[in-house]
């Protein structure tokens, strides 16, 4: 696994990604991020806090579909409470993530695990959007008694697993052989 990831990273070194990373490294924002010792840790702390906010909100929606939380509430009430928090948290995740990429462009852009993380992030967002749409439609007439079908329930847990995969990749960007 380590060899495969290293080989992909090595291949990336010969692509235009390296030129982009070098260009990013020279931008004023990148220089700002690295000139103060605390800028990167602060960006990482904001990144983790917003992941926490999104992760907790998604968990509550998944639990509601599984009939394990939000008793007495319709799905729409649960979604109205938590979905906006997921959206805004995702925005903060992306912005803090971008500032971390700008701080260390080569370390991130020339890294197979970083790109696996980005693909997993896109898949997670697409699966979540499609899932929330179909659950909304199915839950409309059921009211507070709504509990998801076995397919809806397990897709919810797949979304939680995708979040975990993204977190795994996020941590291993720092450790994978490059």
């Amino acid at each position, binding site marked *: 696994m380590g060899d495969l990831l290293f080989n992909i990273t090595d291949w990336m070194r010969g692509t235009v990604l390296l030129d982009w990373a070098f260009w990013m490294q020279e931008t004023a924002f990148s220089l700002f991020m690295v000139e103060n*010792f605390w800028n*990167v*840790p*602060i960006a*990482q*702390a904001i990144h*983790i*806090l917003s*992941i*926490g*906010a*999104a*992760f*907790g*909100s998604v*968990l*509550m929606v998944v*639990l509601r579909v599984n009939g*394990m*939380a*939000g*008793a*007495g*509430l319709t799905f729409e009430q649960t979604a109205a*409470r938590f979905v906006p*928090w997921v959206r805004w948290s995702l925005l903060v995740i992306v912005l803090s993530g971008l500032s971390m990429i700008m701080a260390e462009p080569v370390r991130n852009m020339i890294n197979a695990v970083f790109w696996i993380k980005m693909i997993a992030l896109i898949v997670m967002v697409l699966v979540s959007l499609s899932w929330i749409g179909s659950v909304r439609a199915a839950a409309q007439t059921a009211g507070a008694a709504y509990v998801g079908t076995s397919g809806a329930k397990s897709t919810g847990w797949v979304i939680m697993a995708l979040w*975990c995969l993204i*977190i*795994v990749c*996020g*941590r*291993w960007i*720092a*450790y994978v052989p490059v």
Partner: protein
Amino acid sequence: MYYPEPTTIWESIQYSPLGIFIAESTWAFPTIETIHVIALVTVLGTIFVMDLRLLGVASKNYPVTAMSRDTLKWTWGGFVLAAITGTLLYVSKTSSYMINPFFMGKMALLAIAGLNMAYFHSVTWKTVDNWDTSPVVPTGAKVAGITSLIFWITIVFFGRAIGFTLGIYDCYMVGQGDNGFIVNMLAGIACAGA
């Protein structure tokens, strides 16, 4: 690899077979750290949900007891997992953690956050029947909510700061130059016998 004879209790922990294994393995530390992060975001996420209800910011029409039932088991499950994985990370570099002001600060904040939660559950929670379904919560519950948010945000920042400052502080620095009151105080704990 050669390890010196331990001169402090912290070095004895660090140079134990478990400590050496985690420190030397290429996969153990990152794997444990990853599980620590997943456990941590579970704790954070569910605490945020509960704190926002206590502050009357969100879920205002959902009973506080129901919210507690939905979140608390996940908060505790995540916390136990974070504590186990955190201990394993600590064992691998005990001496460095013990003299790190952000690590010690994080432990102190965790203790205070725990006391805050214990006070809330043993005192404020007793009257919950009176405000369970009310969008307006008593001041005691609001204070518990806002202090919990502040503590946990600071705990995350300190947690990240540890990773950036580990090894900056060391026992050989003690008595050399001006290290500040906190580092000197921690050195008294971390370097005793060294």
